[in-house]
């Protein structure tokens, strides 16, 4: 790298070494331009998809599901029995959410979700995954030493609490139903939803 931060490019007549890789931005633009030249890019479709995941599809959806389960025992029952159908009751579904399983935390059992092989994640209820969820550190370590990883991430679980790790290695996507925090009895469903964090629904934090 040069002082300017730009990647240094060698002379073009060097037959012994291929040209260095172009910067990733340049490569991304090259692929996009090629596809556009061939009429294979639908700009409005791409804009709509990207905008949806930036604005409309995120953890606020899952938070509504959790809040409903906290105030409505019948809904909680349906959610644990058939996550996909119960989540669809609130209008959520789609790619990476066609086969949902909801796992419930209790005082004795803590659930936490990972994808060791790639980055599988329940998009319709949590949006796109954060970088740490896709990181080598999280993917390699959570299945091996979950209590240590959770403690490092700020969740110190006593030894008596059983930890169940769920590796989403097939088509099922998992949502953790966190415990309802103490002292929230007077809150409305909407107020409760604001208390539910993304990390609580992955299982790396409490609600």
């Amino acid at each position: 790298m040069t002082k300017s931060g730009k990647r240094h490019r060698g002379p073009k007549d060097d037959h012994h070494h291929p040209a260095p890789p172009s910067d990733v931005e340049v490569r991304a633009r090259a692929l996009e331009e090629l596809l556009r030249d061939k009429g294979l890019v639908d700009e409005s479709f791409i804009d709509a998809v990207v905008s949806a995941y930036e604005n409309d599809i995120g953890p606020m959806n899952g938070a509504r599901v959790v809040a409903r389960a906290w105030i409505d025992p019948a809904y909680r029952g349906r959610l644990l029995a058939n996550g996909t159908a119960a989540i669809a009751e609130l209008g959520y579904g789609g790619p990476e959410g066609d086969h949902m399983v909801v796992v419930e935390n209790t005082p004795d059992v803590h659930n936490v979700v990972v994808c060791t092989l790639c980055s599988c994640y329940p998009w319709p209820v949590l949006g796109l995954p954060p970088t740490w969820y896709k990181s080598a550190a999280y993917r390699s370590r959570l299945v091996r030493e979950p209590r240590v990883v959770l403690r490092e991430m700020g969740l110190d679980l006593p030894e008596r609490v059983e930890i169940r790790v769920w590796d989403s290695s097939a088509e099922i996507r998992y949502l953790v139903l966190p415990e309802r925090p103490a002292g929230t009895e007077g809150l409305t469903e909407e107020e409760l939803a604001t208390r539910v964090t993304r990390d609580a629904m992955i299982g790396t934090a409490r609600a």
Partner: protein
Amino acid sequence: MNGLHDMGGMDGFGPVQVEEGEPVFHHPWERRVFGLVAGSAARRLAGSTDAFRFAIERMPPAHYLQAPYYERWLTALATLLVEKGVITREELVRRAGGSFPLSQPVPPLRLPTATHSQAPRFGVGDSVVVRNEHPGGHTRCPRYVRGKRGTVVRVDGAFRLPDVAAHREVPCAEPAYSVRFAARELWGTDAAATESVHVDLWESYLEPPLEP
């Protein structure tokens, strides 16, 4: 394939680095790559999700490790589009004005056959052992459970076996299961008795234990 992507249980990656208030995308090119992958999927330009995952797994290990997440997506999409003949590698290189690293070619493979079971072979509570197979193609059977014994905790519907679906557009659905493994079965006697890992596994990956 026994690739670097199969990370469960590896040591040495350090603490999990959390970025507070992380945006959905960090750079405009990441948004565009996400959109291009979604758009290519909608047009069925680049094959199945399984083929896409396998294209990421075929990245040279050093490139896979150093590439940001959406660079892996870019590399896989470009690789599949070249392999499908939608674009050529030369076109990519010319446009990029430098080299355009792609994933490694698909090695010669002997593909498995899905079980095609109409009724699941295993039920909740059954003991199962994960077959110790090392396929050269795509698989969703993580190395850290191969040869290990677990208990079926959930029987899911039938899904396309990724070991076939990544390579061929043929019927290959079979039942899948969630299997619970005690941490000590996976990681030895130092592991806590109060921890378990659940892995979702296709029927082809499993067999009954020799001893009950």
